[in-house]
């Protein structure tokens, strides 16, 4: 028997999660991730268009998680942080430890990883994570 799982929620967010697709305002040029319906500056004058971010940026802040939520209980300790993308937006995400010491200002790129696996029979959730370059 097929098990019904909440896959529509995943499907709607795939472009953003895989490829950091946000948007930017044609009127003033400001970029957003996650995407916004209207530009914060331009309001009714805003003209939003999809924008795929390069995934390159630098660590703005970070913290090591030792007591994780249930979803990530087998993954601790791990690092989450805020990355300032080269195009401007601040993005939250997991930061991989690949041997390069993570500090504020460390240059990162976006990598493609499993974020969460729903038990033995559910979906595998893929997501960007940041990795020092």
């Amino acid at each position: 028997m097929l098990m019904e799982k909440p896959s529509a929620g995943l499907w709607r967010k795939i472009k953003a999660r895989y490829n950091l697709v946000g948007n930017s305002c044609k009127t003033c040029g400001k970029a957003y991730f996650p995407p916004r319906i209207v530009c914060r500056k331009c309001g009714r004058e805003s003209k939003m268009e999809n924008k795929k971010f390069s995934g390159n940026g630098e660590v703005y802040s970070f913290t090591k998680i030792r007591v994780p939520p249930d979803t990530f209980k087998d993954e601790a300790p791990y690092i989450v942080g805020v990355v300032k993308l080269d195009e401007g937006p601040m993005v939250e995400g997991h930061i991989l430890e690949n041997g390069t010491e993570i500090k504020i200002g460390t240059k990162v790129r976006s990598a493609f990883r499993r974020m969460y696996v729903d038990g033995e029979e559910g979906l595998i959730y893929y997501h960007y994570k940041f990795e020092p370059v």
Partner: protein
Amino acid sequence: MAGIVGYGVYIPIYRIRVEDIAKVWNEDAEAIKHGLGIREKTVPGRDEDAATIAVEASRRAVVHSGLSPDKIQAVYVGSESHPYAVKPTATIVKEAIGAGTAVMTSDLEFACKAGTAGMQMVMGLVDSRMIEYGLAAGSDTSQGRPGDALEYTASAGGAAFIIGKEKKEVIADILKTVSYTTDTPDFWRREGAGFPSHGGRFTGEPAYFKHIQNATKLLFETTGFKPTDFKYAVFHQPNGKFPTNVAKMLGFSEKQIEPGLLTPIIGNTYSGASMLGLAATLDVANAGDKILVTSFGSGAGSDSFAIQVTDRIDDKRKRSVKVQDLINAHKKYVDYSTYLKNRGSIRKR
């Protein structure tokens, strides 16, 4: 004929040494290192699987090719460790490289040669002008049963090749490809089984050696080429010994196979193995060099390719991530218990 317009590779940063596995099973590490011709192997991270590896390699292939990803009209992913039993890996890869929706897509499975089978399929589509460009990836997080000889070699990694025929884009022409296939039960895994089974010594002579030799000889017969026509050769590499031996049997020197022989330091990446070997060889090859590649997949079959590098290879080189650089950057050794923990998360049911 179609040719390679870009390639990309991915290898996890984690490694385990032969010593650390041998210790657990009270085996003689030096004897194993000598017998298998392997020192260490890659281990996937807990958040890595055949799909993430194929994506990372394919994204690099797109960058290396210089093509816009919406030009790619076919995506085939070969693996024996697809993360889902039902739900293709290739759709994940297609989406993550930014290809469009008018894309021919499928997963392939043929033990260690599913990736080169994908290259042949894309070549057919390109040469028949059904598509302009297509991508074939080989990616695995292969596993050996704890205590089995395969545990020393089964590793993780992958490579992706973009194939097209636009002359100004092609960095290496594929002059000819042939296959040699029989129904040989040397290695298998039933649906739902966690680990593969194999026929022990049976995997050598009637499987690996017979198929690689026959495919390569068929390639020689149909092209008129001989071993000395090739600057380099790459053979499937389940361990460090088999490719060295088969090269000698076919009349190739150790120097010819040296750049593409990676198993001693990364293990057997299964579907990734001969493709990673080809990528590492292209990293050092120059215009005019001919490269022979013969893969092997249990079950059993071999695909053999005669490839010739064009002078466009240098134009694209600055955008490539070299296999050797990737192997040597950020290496992180793990002990056996971490290895088991990482592996637990990737076991395919």
